C-alpha cells in the first residue's frame, strides 16, 4: 500500500478537525451533531466529487484508492465523534479523578471532593442534553421520543446478545436509587 494513501487519509481527517475547531472557537453551532456530520462526512464527500469533476487528482480515479483513503478518514471521524460528547459534558468520574490528582500526594477526603463536584448540576445538564434528542417534556414530566424508544430497544437487544443485563440504577448509585 502506498504511503501516500495513508497520508491522504490522515490529512483529510486533520483538515476536517481543524475546520471543526475553528468553527467551534468562532461560534458554536446550534445543532452540534448535525454540524459535526456535515464537517466530517458531507464536506469531504463534496470535495471528492468536486475533485473528481475537475479530474485533477489522479488517485481518485482508482476506486480502491478512494475507498482506502475514505475508510481511514471515516474510522477516525467516527472515533472522534463518539468521543465528542465526553469532551462536551463533564463526567463526574473524571472530574473526581482530576480533583484528587491535583491534590496529590496527600489526596482528598470525601468532604473535600464533595465541595468540588456538583453532581446534581451534572444531572440537570444530562437531562438538558437528553431533551435535545431522546426525551421530551410532557406535562410535568418526561417521556421518551420515538428516537429514545428505538435507542433503548437497540441497547437492550445489544446487551442481550452479549448475555449481559442492563445495569440497574443501584449499580451506579449504590446508596440510593435514581427513582
Amino acid at each position, binding site marked *: 500500500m502506498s504511503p501516500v494513501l495513508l497520508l491522504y487519509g490522515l490529512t483529510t481527517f486533520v483538515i476536517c478537525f481543524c475546520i471543526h*475547531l475553528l468553527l467551534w472557537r468562532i461560534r458554536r453551532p446550534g445543532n452540534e451533531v448535525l454540524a459535526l456530520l456535515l464537517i466530517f462526512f458531507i464536506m469531504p464527500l463534496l470535495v471528492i466529487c468536486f475533485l473528481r469533476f475537475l479530474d485533477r487528482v489522479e488517485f481518485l480515479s482508482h476506486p480502491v484508492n478512494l475507498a482506502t483513503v475514505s475508510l481511514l478518514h471515516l474510522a477516525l471521524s467516527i*472515533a472522534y465523534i463518539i468521543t465528542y460528547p465526553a469532551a*462536551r459534558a463533564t463526567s463526574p468520574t*473524571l472530574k473526581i479523578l482530576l480533583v*484528587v490528582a491535583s491534590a496529590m500526594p496527600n489526596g482528598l477526603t470525601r468532604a473535600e471532593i464533595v465541595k468540588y463536584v456538583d453532581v*446534581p448540576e451534572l444531572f440537570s445538564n444530562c437531562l438538558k442534553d437528553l431533551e435535545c434528542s431522546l426525551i421530551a417534556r410532557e406535562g410535568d414530566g418526561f417521556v421518551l421520543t420515538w428516537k429514545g424508544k428505538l435507542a433503548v430497544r437497540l441497547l437492550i437487544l445489544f446487551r442481550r446478545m452479549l448475555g449481559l443485563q442492563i445495569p440497574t440504577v443501584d449499580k451506579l448509585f449504590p446508596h440510593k436509587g435514581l427513582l
Partner: protein
Amino acid sequence: MIMLILLVSSPILAFVVHMLVSRLSRRFSPQMGAIVSILIAQILMALLLYYFVFHGCPTKTAELVSAFLYCFIVYNALTYTYFHLFNMTETSRRIRTAYELEKAGHLHVSDIVPVYGTTDLIDGYLEKVVALNQLTCKNGRYVLSGRLFYYAALVLKALSYILGFQLYSTLSKLSKTPEV
C-alpha cells in the same frame, strides 16, 4: 480490497469475540471483558490479514510499514468506537435515564433530577472509581492508584479546552488551592 473488507468487519469480529468472552468468562468486569475481546479480535484480525493479504506478497518496506500503520489505525479506531458504544450502555447517565423512562413510561421531573444530597451521589461515584482501581482510600483520604482513567481525563480536559468549553476551568481554580 480484501484488506478493506476485513478491516470494515473488525467491529463485528470484536462483537462476536465479546459475545463468547462475556458468556465463557465471568472473571472480568464488563469493561475489562470488552477490552480483552478487542485484544483477542486484534490477534485474529492480524492473522486474517496476514493469511489473505500479506502472505507471499512481495512489497517494499515503506509500503509494508504504511500498510501496517493503516491497518493498526483503522482497526483501533473502529474497535475504539465499539468499546465506547458498549461503555455507554454500561455507565452513561443519559442512557440509564432513558432506560428508566422506557420502563416507567412517564416520569416526573423530581423523579429524575436527584433531590437528595450531593454526598450520597459522590459516594456512588467514589465506590465506582475505587472498584476500577483508579483511586484508593487511605486513612479517610482518597489518592490516585491507577493512571489509565486519569490520563483519559487529561485528554478529554485538553480537548474540552481547545474546543472552547469551560467545563473544567472552575475545577482548575479550585484544585489549585485544595484545602488539604
